[in-house]
């Protein structure tokens, strides 16, 4: 992530300024997502190539990706907490319970990897339909963030003793 499209000074406020010059070089749907998030006081980042939009929140990081057909916006979120590899089964079971009982967002447990220091992470993925109306797309973005936050609040209740992952939600390489 090399360029910052939204002004960090506005974080947490109802509306942030956006560097329109930076947005000019981005694909129009990506620029729209960034603008709508900024209107909601949510900072986001994108690389110069106009790749995925990264939204760092307190409990998780979210990546929004446009589908090739520009019909869907896929989103993937990663909880800022995790489990030791010995608790992989607990993580899988918690995700299974979420998918069974709530299911508005697909949750899964990652496999322990060297990249993650053998930690098991919990991710939530879903999709929203793209729409050319700002009000509608904004509502759908709001809803996706709300559901993601619900997932991790729920995880916090189910698994009150996870490990806090010291890096940013998507790690140092993000």
């Amino acid at each position, binding site marked *: 992530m090399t360029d910052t499209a939204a002004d960090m000074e506005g974080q947490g406020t109802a509306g942030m300024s956006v560097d329109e010059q930076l947005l000019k070089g981005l694909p129009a749907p990506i620029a729209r997502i960034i603008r709508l998030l900024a209107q909601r006081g949510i900072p986001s980042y994108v690389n110069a190539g106009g790749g995925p939009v990264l939204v760092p929140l307190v409990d998780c990081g979210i990546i929004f990706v446009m589908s090739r057909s520009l*019909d869907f916006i896929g989103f993937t979120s990663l909880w800022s907490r995790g489990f030791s590899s010995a608790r992989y089964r607990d993580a899988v079971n918690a995700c*299974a319970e979420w*998918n069974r009982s709530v299911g508005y*967002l697909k949750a899964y*447990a990652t496999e322990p990897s060297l990249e993650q220091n053998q930690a098991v992470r919990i991710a939530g993925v879903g999709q929203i339909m793209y*729409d050319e*109306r700002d009000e509608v797309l904004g509502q759908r973005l709001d809803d996706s963030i709300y559901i993601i936050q619900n997932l991790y609040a729920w995880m916090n209740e189910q698994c009150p003793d996870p490990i806090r992952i010291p890096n940013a939600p998507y790690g140092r390489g993000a």
Partner: protein
Amino acid sequence: MEQPMKSVVDGKRIQQWLEAQGYRVEHHEQSWVGLWGNIMLDFSVRGEHDEYLVVRGAEQGSHPNGHRELLEDVCNAWNRDYEGPAAYLQSSEEGLVFRTVFVVNCQGGMDDDQFDRLMKYAMAGSDGFLGFAQGQLSKLRMS
């Protein structure tokens, strides 16, 4: 250029779409339900403001209760590696059953073309998961 008309996604629209495809479905507790091969699909609109299209799938048949961990891993692998519905296990009197759920926020409505693609995508996902699960279970049986 004029944008196509956006219409609300509701039970009537789901029914009309399914019937236009030639599918036989029944109305059951606010859902439209039909059988496609080995999977029962259930289409409904849910949420406080009826904003979510929810497509649930249920495999016809079951697996032994003793295979729960293995089957949970198959669901988790699908959820991790593939787009589409969430897969999970449900206990039944006969054993464990694979289920899927696909939810999309349709607040603000959508045009017919979008709705058509969304419904086809939702249907294909459940079928895709069952194919994936069968493949995984076959590999495990051979190993």
